[in-house]
């Protein structure tokens, strides 16, 4: 089967989308961006191909009964993949511990690390054994990091081993592991996964076919903030603007205006009925009002980024915030709190202030036309969405607002569509 790949190398996450010969989405993959760009792209692509092979499997079976079998297989696959990464991470940390600069600490650290990884492994097995595992970050660095920190704290409290030293070991090695090539592909772990689920014959035969199915990548297009560093020739690189426009069009064909608020920048894009960009504006040099600003606020309030929106949603009245300057965010927040304003009311005001910045970009780019699609990390924040809905309604009248749960893949999808068009499939 011939396919095309789109890659979106963003400042915080890297995404890949694979399309089949008919232009349908075959698979999506995502990972956190890291210093080694090639590695980030490699992981996202591998993940997309894993998803694609599973999609091929799924296409073999129409009935729902098999769906649950496949779900089991996928969880088994994830277990294998995760355990493999954990083993590698554990090995490196143990090796580091064994040569720790404090000789007297080495033995204790090695023992503690072995124990921690033993436990994380067990926890991961339990996690994936569940029918419907609880939602959590899809990135290995996040799951390993939080489990390690928690267990390290326990072990250090119990055995009197330095928590700081344990954490230091982790911080030193996670970057190393993230930046070295790892076997994470379908081929690497599907065998183990199949064993885990007891090789049901029907599934095993289908897996056999899926393994043998040839997937020929005929073309690829890269985009994103780091696109200049992508391993693609120049003519296979497209701007985020074009890819976001086309991606949003593919998700919602009625789209005429796209707003993307990401970590580093905000883009307002106008597209025609073919998804071709007819105008755009990006935030000016001042980064006020980007996703990063919410990050500062979350840090300042000492709560998680994803908690901000829901907390703001509990507010009955917004406090008026005049400055979205990231430099003054902390000071403004503290002053408001000291004046006795409620956290949720301040937060609601802050969300409105951010959306106001976006409103001015939208106006500069040519306004808001029906339909209007909102993408980027901030599109997952309910308070931001509400503020946007209100302000667009007040200034441009009623418009259909589209938000896709897969909006994070918008840019990669657009890139894949450019690759698809270019390949002439």
């Amino acid at each position, binding site marked *: 089967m011939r396919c095309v790949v789109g890659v979106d190398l963003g400042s915080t996450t890297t995404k890949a989308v694979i399309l089949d010969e008919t232009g349908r989405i075959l698979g999506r993959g995502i990972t956190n961006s890291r210093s080694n760009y090639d590695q980030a792209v490699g992981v996202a692509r591998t993940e997309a191909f894993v998803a694609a092979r599973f999609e091929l499997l799924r296409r073999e079976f129409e009935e729902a009964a098999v769906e649950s079998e496949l779900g089991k297989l996928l969880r088994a696959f994830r277990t294998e993949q995760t355990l493999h990464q954990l083993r590698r991470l554990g090995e490196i940390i143990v090796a580091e511990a064994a040569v720790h600069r404090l000789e007297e600490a080495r033995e204790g650290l090695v023992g503690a690390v072995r124990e921690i990884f033993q436990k994380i492994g067990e926890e991961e097995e339990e996690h994936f054994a569940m029918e419907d595992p609880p939602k959590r970050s899809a990135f290995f660095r996040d799951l390993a990091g939080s489990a390690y920190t928690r267990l390290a704290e326990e072990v250090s409290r119990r055995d009197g081993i330095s928590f700081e030293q344990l954490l230091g070991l982790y911080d030193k090695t996670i970057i190393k592991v993230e930046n070295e090539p790892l076997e994470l592909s379908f081929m690497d772990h599907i065998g183990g996964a199949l064993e885990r689920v007891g090789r049901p014959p029907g599934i095993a035969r289908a897996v056999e076919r899926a393994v043998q199915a040839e997937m020929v990548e005929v073309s690829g297009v890269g985009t994103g903030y780091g696109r200049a560093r992508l391993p693609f020739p120049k003519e296979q690189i497209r701007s985020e603007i074009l890819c976001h426009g086309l991606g949003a069009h593919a998700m919602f064909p009625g789209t005429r205006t796209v707003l993307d608020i990401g970590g580093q920048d905000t883009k307002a894009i106008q597209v025609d009925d073919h998804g071709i960009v007819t105008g755009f504006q990006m935030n000016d040099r001042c980064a006020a009002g980007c996703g990063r600003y919410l990050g500062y606020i979350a840090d300042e309030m000492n709560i998680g980024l994803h908690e901000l929106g829901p907390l703001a949603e509990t507010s009955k009245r917004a406090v008026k915030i005049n400055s979205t300057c990231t430099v003054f965010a902390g000071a403004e927040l503290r002053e408001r709190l000291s004046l006795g304003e409620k956290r949720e009311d301040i937060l609601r005001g802050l969300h409105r202030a951010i959306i106001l910045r976006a409103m001015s970009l939208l106006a500069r780019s040519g306004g808001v036309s029906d339909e209007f699609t909102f993408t980027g990390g901030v599109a997952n924040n309910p308070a931001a969405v509400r503020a946007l809905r209100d302000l667009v309604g007040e*200034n441009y009248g009623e418009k259909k607002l589209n938000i896709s749960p897969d909006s994070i893949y918008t840019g990669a999808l657009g890139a894949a569509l450019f690759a698809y068009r270019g390949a002439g499939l």
Partner: protein
Amino acid sequence: MISRAGIVDWALGIFEDLEFGAARAWLAEGPGRKACGYLPVYAPREVVHASGMLAVGIHGGGDRLEIIKGDAFYQSYICHLPRSVIELAQTGRLDFLSAMLFPSTCDVIRNLSGMWQVLYPDVYVRYLELPQVQDQATGGAFWEGELRLLLRELGRVSGRPADDASLAESIALYNTARGLIRELYRMRREAPWTVPTEELYLLMRAGEGVPVETFIEKARAYMSAVEAEPGQRKDRSRVIVVGAFCEQPPLGLIKTIERAGCYVVDDDFLLGNRFLDTDVSTDNDPVRALAGGFLRHAVSSSIMFEPDPEGKRNLMRQRVQAARADGVIFAAPSFCDPALLDRAMLRAGAEADGIPCIAFKYAENSAQFQQFREQAGTFADSMKLWGDS
């Protein structure tokens, strides 16, 4: 008699009203009435008045206005005032103005005049080029020509062209207003506890949005109220606040300075209302008199070329002496070219004369006063220490 609080409340109401209700009410009182807005710093309001129009000062929406549309017109490194003025206009709040005057305060206000021509083609727009040449024969003739042109054109807009007599009457009214303002400033200088700056500011600010006749009446009433209720003297340092002549500070900032232990005994707030520091003659040709008045009696400011090479160096000393101030607070709007470029010269002159100074920047919608409070408070305390030693 109206109480001090009553007048201040009235002024606060005008100040806070972003719909310009007082001006709209005046327009509604008579058929065919028209209003003319002007931006800071100086506009010849006599000419507007003589043309039968209401002159309305447009100073943005301060911290009371959320900017939704205005930011689409301005980059982040341009001051706050024009985006706020555009916001007022784009939300229909300035739709009662038939004319707009944009004085040559700076490049931003100048360019706003052209933007207005594009955005509001039905409004009469005039960029007012103030005479930068102080020579009577050259600069005076130029400014006289500009004023005559403005008179003609505003007369056309209002349908009530002014003649010499009506202009002379308007000049006389504004002489009265300026005289009252001078007197209020003198009262504050002499006994600042009797005229808190917050109140004086609100009264001046209200004066920008009502007929000059109303302002005169309220200013007189306020003076009587001050005599009746003189207020309590407190131990505070005397400061002058320099640089806030165009984009206005939020009221909270003015309050903060006084509450931090300072008496403001001179300032640049709304400088246009006393840009001419003496009466304009009404004897002969009133246009010529108004033009000549500007040439001879415009105060030293950052918006006009300073012909005297020693002028910038000496200005702070002169103002500090005249106001018997202890020090200078340079308070400039962020990104304000005239105030900030001048500040370097003015401050160097002040420091050479041993005058204590502090400097900060604000925007009309600044919401955090903590840093101002700390700076002004420390400044007030330190001046007292210097004064005592």
